[in-house]
């Protein structure tokens, strides 16, 4: 019996361990969405919101000044990709949504760094509200911005692998399925991404010293 998605509200554990929610049959959800069934909107939102928020928060850290808009942008890209048939079901929708959210977050970072708004108040409240090690807050914030800047300058494919695996914790096999590459090719890409990050960090360190 086909299980239609309209009664599902999956719970909100944001981590990658909750990657597949059994309550939602994603194939049915996609079919309902493509049929324009408006009831599927709430199911889509509840199914993907935790993964999207987790990815946006992990990459951006804290409440980006346009955080809510970025979430909306992510959903917009997801729907557009579905309409254009770009989700092939090789990974779970949540992993796919994480990747899209990570791209949206990186785009936002690139835009911010292009505007040269260094250490503007966005995202700082998480550090400011952290009672531990107040003396290290500025240092940690500066380090965070440095890493974000490095990532925002890397090639999208490399940084995607790095974020999904090393930051968001998705397994290599799922990232491979998402990109349509073999696990060994994905591991190689991850390897290159780490080297690239280290190289850029080294170059920057030398440049700053």
């Amino acid at each position: 019996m086909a299980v239609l998605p309209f009664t599902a509200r999956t719970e909100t554990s944001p981590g990658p361990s909750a990657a597949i929610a059994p309550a939602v049959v994603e194939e049915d959800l996609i079919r309902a969405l493509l049929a324009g069934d408006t009831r599927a909107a709430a199911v889509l939102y509840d199914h993907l919101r935790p993964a999207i928020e987790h990815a946006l928060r992990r990459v951006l850290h804290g409440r980006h000044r346009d955080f809510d808009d970025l979430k909306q942008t992510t959903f917009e890209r997801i729907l557009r990709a579905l309409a254009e048939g770009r989700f092939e079901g090789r990974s779970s929708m949540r992993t796919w949504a994480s990747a899209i959210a990570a791209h949206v977050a990186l785009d936002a970072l690139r835009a911010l760094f292009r505007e040269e708004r260094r250490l503007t108040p966005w995202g700082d409240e998480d550090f400011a509200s952290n009672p531990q090690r107040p003396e290290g807050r500025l240092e940690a914030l500066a380090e965070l911005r440095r890493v974000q800047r490095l990532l925002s300058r890397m090639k999208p494919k490399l940084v995607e692998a790095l974020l999904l695996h090393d930051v968001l914790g998705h397994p290599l096999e799922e990232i491979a399925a998402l990109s349509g590459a073999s696990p060994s090719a994905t591991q190689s890409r991850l390897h290159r991404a780490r080297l690239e990050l280290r190289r850029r960090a080294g170059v920057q360190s030398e440049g700053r010293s």
Partner: protein
Amino acid sequence: MTERPPSHPELLDVLRTAPLGVPTPNEIELERERLLPWLTRQVADLPAVQARAKRQARLRWLGGGAALFAAAAAIVLVVGSLSVGSAPSEEAAFATLVSGSLESDKLELLPGSRLGLSSQVRASDSAPAVLTASSGYRVELSPRSEMEFVQPTSTRTSLRLLDGEVALSVPKLRSGQVLEVQTMDATVRVRGTRFSVRFDSTAAVARTCVRVTEGLVEVDRVGETISLVPGQSSGCETVAPKAPAALAPGRPRELAVQKAAKTSLGEENRLLALALSHERAGRRAEARKSYEELQRRFPESRFLPEARAGLARLVTAPQGP
């Protein structure tokens, strides 16, 4: 053993472990309330977006090809269209109108016209339209009924019935092949049979009526799948819709969603989607009627701004041909 890629914890740890603000349940709910109406509208528009994307993809494909290839394709198309009895390609033509007349994108189609995928068509007010699909099945679309052909997959062919009634005669399908009719509240799957599907988009409660003449038909509604044999029907009785399937305990959101569906939200959604669909198809009078019905019946509706905006568009937009 493969070499482990060099990790860079001192760099990425700051992203992995730095404190994250956690939204309160109240914030989550507020954000949901804010985004959901927008998302609902996007979903209502998704079939149109999909159709546009397909058209653009086709145009890109045509525009991006080499001149020689384009010329060859043109020759193939011309030869194909002149070949008597040859089956049209799925991309070029998915079905042929045999009798009656259809309206598509404000154009009247007469017998002999070929329809492409994603064509949204409406039968005339006076007579049913009969089509034969390139894959062999026959479709009879009742007067004033609306439907569209959906992009098929390797195993599935789909029609989407937007309003009215459609009767199908389906030859025996190959093993693993499925033909289905989708409506807003049900999917009807067949393997080789004769049956009809009726869907009244203007009824107070969306309900799809399925009648089977021959063969075996599977009807998939929210939460249940039933099989019908010849002579049987489903959803044609004029009683209130069946209660949804029993819920597992401890799922308040599920209860809330179902309650919303049973109360006005689902109906408000339906009216808005219907109005948008009419508006997109250029049926201004019907669109206006649906917007006004939404305003009249649900004066507290969260979709009132959209209804007002839609009416304003209808008033200000230039009249079509």
